[in-house]
């Protein structure tokens, strides 16, 4: 009996690796040839950046159970840190700026995660909200961060990685893709080691975790640090590769909520879920606006679009929480399981 169990285990693992490989082939091989500029610039690049931010947040909120409503603040920290490192240290490769930016975001994350020693749940969320408002204020108020640019909007520097220069929509897409792939692999690794299990233990039963000897406070801070590092890098990607400007306005509370929605809809405590959720969030407004103008014509202006988007997004959240609290990932898994059982039964009964 145990041999069958191990056989299916290896098969499912093999299938996961194959799927990942297939995705990489499509992403690196097919998309650059068949993708339009619009697809690359307006859909794929923001999708990747948001996915990475969601992966980061999921580590903290989905796995470790610490609710954070300040994700955008950590993204902003990353973006501005990278900009300033790149600007003020001549000859610093962008890779180094990226890593340093992540480290800055991690530091801020740990700072606002310190209250987790004594706070839980909503109360901890208050701390992250404080981060959100405070960081946004600092970055707006002190012109030094924007290089004292009078308009407050600064251009992002050109992208390069390990000496290769990434220009144009395709270049930026490939840059983003590479960074996201690397960091997602790291996140996946974290989750499958004991550290990831410590996160889950703290989320599921903090008292028991403490009793069996998990260093709870240190682990929470680790979660804040790792999560904010990834989120910070995502912020750099968002600003440098997608928007190509660095400004505080795009990293507001709405953005923080957006990332929270992504992980709820995609599936908490799931790396894949971040991508599912981000895909929906990025693609859905496009579909909605096409649908709306097709159904309602001129009546469907941008104001109506904005409001309907809000309503439908809110509805989606509630529907998912009621019907499938484990998110799109759970739906996907159920679908693929019933598909494979249908094909299996077809094989047995041709």
């Amino acid at each position: 009996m145990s041999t069958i169990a191990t056989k299916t285990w290896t098969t499912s693992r093999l299938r996961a690796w194959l799927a990942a490989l297939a995705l990489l082939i499509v992403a690196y091989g097919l998309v650059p040839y068949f993708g339009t500029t619009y697809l690359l610039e307006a859909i794929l690049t923001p999708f990747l950046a948001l996915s990475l931010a969601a992966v980061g947040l999921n580590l903290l909120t989905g796995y470790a159970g610490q609710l954070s409503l300040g994700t955008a603040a950590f993204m902003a920290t990353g973006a501005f840190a990278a900009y300033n490192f790149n600007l003020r240290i001549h000859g610093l490769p962008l890779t180094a700026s990226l890593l340093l930016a992540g480290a800055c975001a991690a530091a801020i994350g740990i700072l606002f995660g310190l209250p987790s020693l004594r706070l839980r749940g909503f109360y901890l969320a208050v701390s992250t909200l404080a981060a959100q408002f405070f960081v946004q204020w600092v970055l707006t108020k002190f012109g030094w961060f924007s290089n004292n640019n009078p308009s407050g909007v600064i251009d992002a520097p050109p992208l390069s990685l390990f000496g290769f220069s990434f220009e144009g929509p395709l270049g930026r897409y490939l840059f983003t893709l590479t960074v996201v792939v690397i960091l997602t692999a790291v996140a996946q690794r974290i989750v499958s080691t004991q550290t990831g299990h410590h996160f889950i233990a703290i989320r599921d039963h903090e008292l028991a975790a403490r009793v069996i000897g998990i260093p709870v406070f240190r682990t929470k801070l680790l979660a804040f640090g790792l999560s904010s590092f990834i989120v910070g890098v995502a912020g750099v990607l968002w600003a440098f590769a997608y928007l190509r400007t660095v400004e505080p306005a795009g990293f507001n509370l709405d953005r923080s909520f957006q990332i929270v929605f992504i992980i709820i809809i995609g599936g908490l405590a799931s790396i894949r879920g971040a991508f599912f959720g981000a895909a929906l969030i990025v693609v859905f407004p496009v579909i909605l606006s096409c649908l709306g103008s097709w159904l309602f014509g001129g009546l469907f202006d941008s104001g109506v679009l904005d409001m309907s988007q809000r309503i439908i997004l809110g509805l989606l959240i509630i529907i998912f929480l009621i019907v499938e609290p484990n998110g799109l990932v759970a739906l996907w898994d159920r679908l693929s399981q019933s598909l494979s059982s249908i094909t299996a039964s077809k094989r047995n009964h041709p």
Partner: protein
Amino acid sequence: MINFDFAFLIEVLVGGLLAGVMYSLVAIGFVLIYKTSGVLNFAQGAMVLFAALTFVSLLERGMPFWLSLIITLAVMVILGIAVERVVLRPLVNQPPITLFMATLGLSYIIEGAAQLLWGTQVHGLELGIDDTPFEIAGVLISKFDLVAAAIAAGMVILLTAFFRYTRIGLAFRAVADDQFAALAVGLRLPQIWAAVWTAAGVVALVAGLMWGARLGVQFSLSLVVLKALPVLVLGGFDSILGAIVGGLLIGASEKLAEVYIGPMVGGGIEGWFAYVVALVFLLIRPAGLFGQKLVERA
């Protein structure tokens, strides 16, 4: 000795206290719902916006004041019942964090619906209270703020009396204390929750009218909820008195900080100061000033 302008200090302080009262108006709605169902209703701000927008739009379409008020009240009642049926009942045994996320989604729905129905432009709101400042002992006080404080006080008195002397109020308190025991004595939870959310809706309407008259009725009204959170942290999530005291403290400290510390750092600290105060407070006294201390029984 530097000539310290005490009159100015008092003025700022009083202004801050009265602004704090406005925060309390919103926070009281939170407390109502949290006290009876343990749900932190993030959609309270959206409800404020919705109530104010409905009222103002009816007014603008020529309806008389009192009719508009009654219709808006009716709408908030329907909203309360709908929320209980559609959102709360299916999620009844979920952990509090899930319910909080649901109210997050709810806030998006209500905000979107309000503006889809009534439009996104700013509406002015005239309540017949003119905002002429008057002087007491050399300190300028806004008449409007005083009326707001009076209304808030009135509401607290009404609510306290309601909880203590009416059967429904008693039922609210029973549910807040122990849901299962309440069920055991035959209290119908769905009805009570619908009533609670309606009450919160009424409170939201009052808050919406006051805030709308002061700021104009527009989308940013729903962001007032963000200021209510530090108020709740200070006052305790389940105490109406705490909502008042917390509001006063937050309002006062915010204004004082803005006036005295603000210029040193370029201003605009009102955006986050309340949160930092709340955070510091949380680290010293996690349950808030009047909240019930949680005894963690393993």
